[in-house]
C-alpha cells in the first residue's frame, strides 16, 4: 500500500529533524570553536598583538596573598615575538610579566594534586557507601540515601567552594597546622564533596547489576553476607567501579569554581600536597576575563580548554567502554 503524502506531517517531521540536528551541530561546534582559538599557537601565526596595559591576572582569589605569586602586575611593551609551542612545556606559568612564561607543568601538577586527594577521599567513601546501601542497609537507609546523594550532587559548586573557603579551610588548618590556609589539600577535600555523588551513583548501578544468582550461590555455599558482599559482589562489579573512579577523576579535573575558591591559586611546582596550587581549570576561570582577545595568553587559555575537553572526552569514552563492554560481557557470561 502506498503511503499518502501529507505536507503538514512532512513539514513537522523535517522541523523536528532539523532541531535534532541543530543540537548535534552545536555539540560539534563546541569542539571546533574551542580548538579554533588555540590552533594559531601551533601554526606559528600567534604573536603578541597588543600592548597590555595594567593586566591584573596575577591577583589572588582567596586571602592567601602571602603565598609566593608568579609575578606582580607589570606593564608590557608592545612586541612581536613568534610563539613556539615548546614554550608550553616550560616549568613556569607567568603569563603576565615582561617575559611571559606559559609553562603548563605547574597547572597540570596542580590539577593532578587536587584530583588525587579528592579521589583518595571520595573513592572509598562513594564505593563503600554504595556497597552498604546495595547489600547491608535496611530498607529505610537504602531509600533515604538516594535523595541525600542527589541533594549533594545538586549543591552548586560555588556553595561547596564557599563552604570550603569560609569554614573547611580554617578547620583543616587548625587540625593539621598548614602554613597556608588555602592549599591543594583543602581544595581536594572540598572537591571530594563534589565527587562522592558521581562515584556513589555509578558504583551503586554497577553493584545492583551483579546477577542475583551469584549472591545466592555464594550464600548457599555457606558464606556470610559480608563475605558475599566483599568477595563476590564487589569483585564482580569491578569494571563499573573502575568506571566510577574514572568519571570521578574527570569531574574533579574539570571542576572550576571549587578550586578557584579553595586552593590558593598560586602556580607553584612543588611536591608538597599542602602548598597552594593553581589548576588548569582555575587558570582559565581566573585569567580569561583579563586577557586581550587574540593574543598569546588568550590562545594558551583556549589551549588549556581544549586539553580539558580532550581529557574529559577520553575519560568518558573509557568509562563507557568499561561499563558497556567489560561489565555487560562479564554478566552475560555469568
Amino acid at each position: 500500500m502506498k503511503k499518502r503524502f501529507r505536507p503538514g506531517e512532512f513539514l513537522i517531521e523535517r522541523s523536528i529533524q532539523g532541531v535534532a540536528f541543530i543540537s548535534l551541530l552545536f555539540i560539534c561546534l563546541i569542539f571546533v570553536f574551542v580548538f579554533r582559538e588555540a590552533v594559531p599557537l601551533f601554526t606559528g601565526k600567534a604573536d603578541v598583538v597588543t600592548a597590555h596595559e595594567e593586566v591584573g591576572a596575577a591577583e589572588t582569589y582567596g586571602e592567601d596573598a602571602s603565598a609566593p605569586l608568579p609575578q606582580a602586575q607589570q606593564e608590557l611593551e608592545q612586541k612581536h615575538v613568534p610563539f613556539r609551542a615548546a614554550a608550553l612545556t616550560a616549568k613556569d606559568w607567568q603569563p603576565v610579566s615582561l617575559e611571559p612564561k606559559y609553562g603548563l607543568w605547574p597547572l597540570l601538577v596542580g590539577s593532578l594534586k587536587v584530583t588525587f586527594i579528592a579521589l583518595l577521599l571520595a573513592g572509598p567513601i562513594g564505593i563503600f557507601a554504595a556497597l552498604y546501601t546495595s547489600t547491608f542497609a535496611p530498607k529505610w537507609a537504602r531509600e533515604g540515601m538516594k535523595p541525600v546523594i542527589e541533594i549533594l550532587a545538586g549543591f552548586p559548586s560555588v556553595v561547596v567552594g564557599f563552604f570550603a573557603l569560609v569554614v573547611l579551610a580554617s578547620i583543616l588548618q587548625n587540625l593539621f597546622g598548614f602554613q597556608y590556609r588555602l592549599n591543594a589539600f583543602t581544595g581536594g577535600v572540598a572537591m571530594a564533596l563534589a565527587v562522592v555523588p558521581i562515584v556513589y551513583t555509578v558504583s551503586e548501578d554497577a553493584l545492583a547489576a551483579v546477577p542475583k544468582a551469584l549472591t545466592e550461590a555464594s550464600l548457599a555455599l555457606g558464606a556470610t553476607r559480608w563475605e558475599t558482599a566483599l568477595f563476590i559482589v564487589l569483585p564482580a562489579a569491578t569494571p563499573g567501579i573502575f568506571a566510577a573512579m574514572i568519571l570521578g577523576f574527570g569531574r574533579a579535573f574539570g571542576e572550576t569554581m571549587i578550586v578557584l575558591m579553595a586552593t590558593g591559586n598560586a602556580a607553584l611546582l612543588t611536591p608538597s600536597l599542602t602548598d597552594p596550587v593553581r589548576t588548569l581549570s582555575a587558570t582559565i576561570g581566573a585569567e580569561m576575563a583579563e586577557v586581550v582577545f587574540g593574543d598569546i595568553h588568550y590562545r594558551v587559555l583556549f589551549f588549556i580548554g581544549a586539553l580539558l575537553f580532550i581529557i574529559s572526552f577520553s575519560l568518558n569514552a573509557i568509562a563507557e567502554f568499561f561499563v558497556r563492554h567489560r561489565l555487560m560481557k562479564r554478566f552475560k557470561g555469568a
Partner: protein
Amino acid sequence: MKLSKTVTGRIVVGFTAFCAFSAVAAVAWIMGTIIWGGHSHISWAFLSQAPTEGMTEGGIFPAIFGTFLLVVIMSLVGVPVGTITAIYLSEYVNRESKLAQIIRFAVNTLSGIPAIVFGLFGLGFFIQFTGKNLDRVFSPDALHWAQPNILWASLTMALLTLPVVIVSVEEAIKTVPRELREASLALGATRWQTIRRVVLPGSLGGILTGAILAVSRGAGEVAPILFTGAAYFLPQLPTHFSDQFMELGYHVFIMTTQSTDVEKTLPIQYATTLVLLALTFTLNFSAIALRARLRRRRMAA
C-alpha cells in the same frame, strides 16, 4: 590474634555504614552551617534592595533578578530544543540506528564536558564569532553584540543544560506504553498526531522534571558565565539582551574572593549563599518528588 567471623563482619558492615553516613553528615553539615550563618541576615529588605556602599551593605535583588532572567531565557531555548531532540531520538529514528547512536554519544559527551569549557565556547562562538559578525553587519562603528551579555550567557547555559533535558524527556517518553501508540496509529492518526495527543501528554511529567533540573543546574553553575555576561556590579537592572547582568552564584564568588572587606561582608556572603542554596534545593527537591510520584503512578498503572 585471629578475629572471629562475626567480629570481622561487624567491622565490615560498620565501616561501609560509616562511609554512607559520612556522606549524609557532610550534606547536613554544609546545609546547617550555611543556614546557621545566613538566616539572620535574610530580610525582605535584603531580598528586594540593591547592594550599596561599594557592595559592603544593602541587598542582592539585582543578582536574584539576573539569575531569574538567565534561567528564563535559558529554558525558553533549551527546553523546547531538548524536548524536540528527545522526541526525534525516540519517535522518529530507530533506537539502534547509527544516527541515533551518534546523537546519543554526542549528548553523553556534552554532559561530561567541564562547565568552564562551555564558557570558552560561549566566548569563542557567541561573542567572538556570532557577535562580531552581527556587529559587522548591523553596527559597524559600535561594539554591541561582540561583548559579554545576558543573551550569550543564557545560550551558553542552555547548551550546558541540554543533556539534562534530553535524558529526562527520553526517559519519560520511554514509559509511554507502546500499545497506546499503536492504538492511536491503528485508529488512523498520523505520527505527529500520535506524538501530540498521546506521547507528549503521557510524558509531560518527565518534561517538567527535565526543565526543573535544568533550571537548577543553570542557576547553580558559575563557570560558564564568568566571561560570557556576569558583571561584578551594575547600577541598573538589565533591560536588553545586550546588557550584562548580576547573578547569585557569581555574586557569592566575587563577594568571597574580591570584596573590599571580606570580614565585614561575611553575613552578606552567608545570606547570598543561603538564598542560592535554598533556590537550587527547592528546585531539586521538587524534581525528585515529582519523579517519585510519576514512578509510583507508573507502577500502579
